[in-house]
């Protein structure tokens, strides 16, 4: 049995979590909890929460106090050069000053603040990755967590700091057994410095009773280059807010998503690509394959600030409806406050597989099922092709297979 806090999240739980922690962290958790209490719970009147009611969120499971830790494997040579890759609690113990200077200082999108705040107040797990200036980490770092059975709340926080001119690839994979009603409130704060490069992939394979209410904040520094990938396969409800701040001049971000949902799953993303700095580039591509009675909503805002000159941005959201009862609500919003733009636009589509494609594939001898799998796999290829780490690509395809089918099945 996992160790759980006795009841729903409250000030006492937050205090309990911080027992034995340094004073600064105890104060920080308490501060965040005060902000949580001062801020209202989201309502259906908020644009970002209109499509996902939180009424049935399993809030009563106690907080998971002893989460299983991921295995954090790091080449000793990299550790010697100052790279730190561990769980957040260990990092607080071993590198308190470093963690202190980066943890818990940022706000995120207003719509996600209630959950961002809860996670920063009550995290009991999460990844800490620090890559010092100038260090290039070859090959992906992998943090894989398998959550236990049981009905609980778990609000881990991941903190990634990539210093000037450093580069790193990180895969975070989370899975849990089916059946239990869990509130998984994972958040991530990705801080990418001057000229640095980050490839971040999040592979979500949570059980079918899990409510995943997450938030990701990415701050892209001058001339930095960031790619994030969210591969969403599991959970009952997945609601994630992505806050992408293009603060540094000349920064680039690519935001990729692969969403494969079935049964009565609901996936609801909201994003804000905030172009604050001049000559920044931000492109988003989210692809959803929706089976059974699943439903995907995507409310994404591209905001170009008056002082951000010469920016390029595109936001694209495509939904493949694979069942008569599947549904999609892609809503790409533009708020453009300057005329000095190089490129700005968005596209959104929803529809079934083109019957001509289906017919063609079947005329070549594929069964109806194999034809569909091949077409869905092809539909996803635009994102899959952009995953430049082979191990991550293989891992993502493997995770998608139960939903969309194996690619070698198609060939057979």
């Amino acid at each position, binding site marked *: 049995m996992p160790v759980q806090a006795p009841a729903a999240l409250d000030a006492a739980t937050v205090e309990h979590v911080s027992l034995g922690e340094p004073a600064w962290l105890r104060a920080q958790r308490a501060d965040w909890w005060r902000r949580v209490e001062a801020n209202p719970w989201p309502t259906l009147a908020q644009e970002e929460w209109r499509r996902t009611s939180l009424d049935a969120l399993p809030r009563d499971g106690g907080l998971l106090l002893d989460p299983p830790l991921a295995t954090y494997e790091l080449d000793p040579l990299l550790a010697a050069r100052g790279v730190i890759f561990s769980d957040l609690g260990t990092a607080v113990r071993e590198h308190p000053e470093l963690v202190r200077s980066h943890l818990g200082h940022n706000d995120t999108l207003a719509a996600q603040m209630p959950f961002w705040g809860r996670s920063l107040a009550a995290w009991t797990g999460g990844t800490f990755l620090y890559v010092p200036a100038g260090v290039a980490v070859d090959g992906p770092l992998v943090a894989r967590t398998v959550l236990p059975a049981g009905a609980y709340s778990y609000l881990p926080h991941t903190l990634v700091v990539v210093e000037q001119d450093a580069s790193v690839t990180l895969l975070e994979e989370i899975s849990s057994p089916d059946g239990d009603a869990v509130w998984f409130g994972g958040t991530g704060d990705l801080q990418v410095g001057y000229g640095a490069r980050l490839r971040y992939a999040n592979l979500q394979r949570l059980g079918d009773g899990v409510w995943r209410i997450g938030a990701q904040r990415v701050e892209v520094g001058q001339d930095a280059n960031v790619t994030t990938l969210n591969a969403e396969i599991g959970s009952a409800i997945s609601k994630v807010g992505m806050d992408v701040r293009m603060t540094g001049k000349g920064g680039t971000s690519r935001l990729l998503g692969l969403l494969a949902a079935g049964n009565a799953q609901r996936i609801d993303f909201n994003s804000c690509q905030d172009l604050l700095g001049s000559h920044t580039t931000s492109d988003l591509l989210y692809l959803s394959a929706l089976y059974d009675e699943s439903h995907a909503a995507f409310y994404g805002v591209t905001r170009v600030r008056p002082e951000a000159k010469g920016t390029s941005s595109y936001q694209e959201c495509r939904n493949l*409806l694979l069942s*008569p009862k599947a549904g999609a609500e*892609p809503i*790409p*919003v533009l708020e453009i406050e300057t005329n000095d733009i190089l490129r*700005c636009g968005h*596209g*959104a589509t*929803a529809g079934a597989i083109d019957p001509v494609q289906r017919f063609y594939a079947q005329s070549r001898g594929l069964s109806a099922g194999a034809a569909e799998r091949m077409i869905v796999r092809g539909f996803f290829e635009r994102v899959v092709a952009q995953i430049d780490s082979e191990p991550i690509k293989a891992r993502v395809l493997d995770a998608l297979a139960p939903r969309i089918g194996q690619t070698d099945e198609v060939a057979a």
Partner: protein
Amino acid sequence: MALPNPAVNKVPTGYKYGWHDPEMKSLHVMKKGLSREVVEEISRIKGEPQWMTDLRLKAFRHFEARPMPTWGGDMSQIDFQDIFYYVTATDKAVQSWDDVPDYIRRTYDRLGIPEAEKKYLAGVGGQYDSEVVYHNIRADLEKQGVIFLGTDEALVKYPEIFREYFGTVIPANDNKLAALNTAVWSGGSFIYVPKGVHVELPLQAYFRINTENMGQFERTLIIADEGSSVHYVEGCTAPAYTTASLHSAVVEIIVKKGARVRYTTIQNWSHNVYNLVTKRAVAYEDAVMEWVDGNLGSRLTMKYPSIYLLGERAHGEVLSIAFAGSDQHQDAGGKVIHAAPNTTSLITSKSISQGTGRTSYRGLIKVYPGCHGSKSTVRCDALILSDDARSDTYPYMEIDEEDVTIGHEATVSKVGSEQLFYLMSRGMNEAEASAMIVNGFIEPIVKELPMEYAVEMNRLIQLQMEGAVG
């Protein structure tokens, strides 16, 4: 209420319809402000049947109960108690321009309406403040049973057909401003086109606000019976006052099986007018509904013409042009609801913002379960002409059916310096070159307008742009 922004407290240059008729003699001027008594008094002056008085009062209760919308544009300066709800110069609509009071006649002459009527219109209506002052339709159409009347007159002459359709597309409690309109509506056009009749030339109505702090609340109802067709055009202008006026119309259109309606608006209100309008059409089997919506004037426009596709194979189109100059906000767009199989729709929006202007496209495509074979394309392009201008796009899509093809695309761009350089190297000045690029940008929509309006639209945009570039 004086407008807060000093920039609009002078008459905008280039707005050529900004005069007002000082000699207007009002027959009825109701005191400013809104109350149950004002609503009852409007109904009493009009001598309406009880059901309409009751409907007005019910709508007024809805209006009072509902909060102001908090999305869209800035409506904080609208003071509903500082508006005239009913001002009228004449007591009936006449069918000859000779019978219209001289000063009103002069206004319409300056707007070129009687001239246009002779040349290329099948019928004309003119509304001056609260009441329709002129209404006429060609005799041959009248003989075929086409009805084109002021809405008040239609209530008297055709009470049954009126009651059957009025408020069925936009109910009294639809939204706060539609409730306001239902409570205090006056004027507007009523059109009925019988089965199989095609009205080949456009019918036009011209809406003019003259009185300061006026609220104009016209109500238009168009019924195109099976297999018929009609094109209705409305234009709007107002004097350029330094205080706010309110225009809050409701337009309901019923397009029956196989019928076709096109509704064209050239909105050119002066920059002190809040233009908050609800327009909605229902289209049955094989029907076609088209909104052509040009928004050039007003301080704030919030208007999203919508189409409910209720019958199989119905088709809806919205063509929207918005131009926002300094201190203007055009929050426009369109909505199409696919509620039957094999329905199709197309929304094309072109918006231009300059100075400190702001354009917003706001739209919705909704496909209900079971509406297989539905197709929709939404295309929004925005051109931002100055550093301080702003453009937003809010395209909502709710798709609950698999067998559909739904697409949305949008771009935002500026006038390219290379484009400008090229044109200027051919001898144009910057303003001319920009105007030409803008005209090219809106061409796909302008070409859908009747010739005379296309020319007018290009000229209006040129006027808007004068002195604004550089």
